[in-house]
């Protein structure tokens, strides 16, 4: 076969590349379109504020929404302070030695572990070993442990992006190390920390595997009364109604998917807004 001309090769390559891009992009649009189109009809005030009825085939998803909110808050409480402080330790205090390098490596690896392994860990440690039972507490702790590597990494990067000159200047003016962190570093790392935390929360809100056996309830006819209670949650609810409820009206499933998707995208949107806003305001 004769060698093709460079121009022709380029055209063929471009066709392949553009087609590939379309093959990637169209399903994304398709999925969004589908969920909105088929889910929107299900969204109304009753759907969002009522309990499920008739074995979940009718009624609303209110307890799942509430449950997801509780889990988000629980995850925030357990992951944010610890993650941020630990990152401050790693960046500002810890000395560079083999030990700290192993820690940093471990945290990066933790971020890559499949979420189901976290679920297994949560089941074994929180539900069973510590006797918390299937509860908001166990679920939040499991989700928090899953989120901590993300929070630590985001905080670490935010801290490292603050120019070193700020620290030097602050110290040379007689400030203590903590004063320097508090006044000359943290305020400028805050947008990155907030963005990273919101993103980690949005991921936690959408995850099913870690809550499968640590907190999720198939059907709870009442709202939780304490942190030792089980709770329904949006991702688990979607899973259950699509796989385990026979003759489930598709409209309600799409509606649940839409609510979950909406929540997650809403959180992500805030993270993006915060990130762009502060990037513009940056004066250095």
């Amino acid at each position: 076969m004769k060698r093709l001309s460079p121009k022709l090769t380029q055209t063929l390559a471009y066709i392949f590349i553009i087609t590939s891009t379309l093959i990637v992009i169209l399903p994304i649009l398709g999925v969004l379109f589908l969920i909105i189109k088929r889910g929107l009809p299900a969204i109304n005030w009753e759907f969002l504020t009522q309990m499920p009825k008739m074995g979940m085939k009718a009624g609303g998803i209110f307890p799942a929404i509430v449950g997801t909110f509780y889990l988000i808050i629980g995850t925030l409480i357990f992951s944010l302070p610890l993650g941020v402080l630990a990152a401050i330790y790693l960046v500002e205090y810890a000395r560079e030695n083999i030990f700290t390098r192993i820690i940093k490596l471990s945290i990066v690896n933790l971020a890559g572990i499949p979420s189901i392994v976290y679920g297994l860990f949560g089941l074994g440690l929180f539900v069973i070993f510590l006797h918390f039972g299937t509860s908001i507490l166990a679920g939040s702790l499991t989700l928090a442990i899953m989120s901590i590597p993300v929070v630590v990494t985001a905080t670490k990067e935010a801290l490292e992006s603050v120019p070193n000159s700020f620290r030097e200047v602050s110290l040379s003016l007689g400030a203590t190390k903590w004063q320097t962190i508090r006044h000359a570093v943290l305020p400028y790392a805050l947008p990155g920390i907030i963005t990273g935390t919101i993103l980690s929360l949005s991921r936690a809100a959408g995850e099913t595997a870690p809550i499968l056996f640590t907190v999720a309830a198939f059907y709870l006819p009442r709202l939780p009364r304490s942190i030792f209670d089980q709770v329904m949650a949006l991702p688990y609810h979607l899973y259950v109604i699509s796989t385990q409820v026979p003759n489930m009206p598709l409209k309600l499933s799409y509606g649940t998917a839409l609510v979950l998707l909406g929540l997650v995208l809403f959180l992500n949107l805030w993270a993006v807004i915060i990130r762009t806003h502060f990037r513009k305001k940056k004066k250095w």
Partner: protein
Amino acid sequence: MKKIKEFLVENSIRLSGVIIILIVILIFIFLFKNAIALFQNYSLKEFLTGKQWYPISEPPKFGIVPLLLGSLLVTVGASIISIPLGISCAVFISEIAPQFLKDTLKALIELLAAIPSVVLGFVGMVTLVPFIRSVFNLPTGLTALSGSIMLALMAMPTIVSIAEDALNAVPKAYKEGAYALGATKWQVIHRVILPAAFSGLVAAIMLGIGRVIGETMAVMMITGNAARIPHSFLEPVRTMTATIAAEMGETVRGDLHYFALFAIGLVLFLITFVINLIADIALNRSRR
């Protein structure tokens, strides 16, 4: 007074560092301990090479091979689809697309990354699965193929964004040199840019594969749940992740089945560890 406050704050910070270290160690130990417990009463060889996964038979059989092959099949399938498509898409965004399109495409890819896997699993279940069933005339559309397609979609954001970073990192000087010699854009792309970004592309692929192997919900909803050795893409399979999720509720703490699931968890952990390690090395190479 100030001194006391300073002391408390600094030590809380150090304490947090220590707690994190303890958590990391705890996770490792917990996983190992419970996994190893299996092998006190069940042969390691049998676990790694056994072709039957029947946890409730008497005596139970915990051969991981069908699950491993299930994961492998789905991963390979997803890779065949997502790697060429993902890299091409990254090339398009990085080298060919005009600026306004770049931002839109990147936003869409980020959007895809944010969609929870259970949502994608659900959509795949109600659209893709019946489609595959009718196209191939199968008894059920819950197959490895359906899983591969869905997982390829889920791996896409990882592959595209890391590959795009790698392509952007190629120094301008390389490209300008090639253009100065009269090369066409495509020649520059495939002879200069792609090879130069190679390590970064490897990292992107590795991390995409890692994403696929670790996925649980979507596979549970789409690949069927037959813990048998698959013979083709058009059969239902069961992955390691789905096995843990599906059977977790049936175990009792301390029984063999419980430990066996941890053993699978350990295998998953080791696999993702190795993948992340390779990706890490590749990323470091690309940064030099």
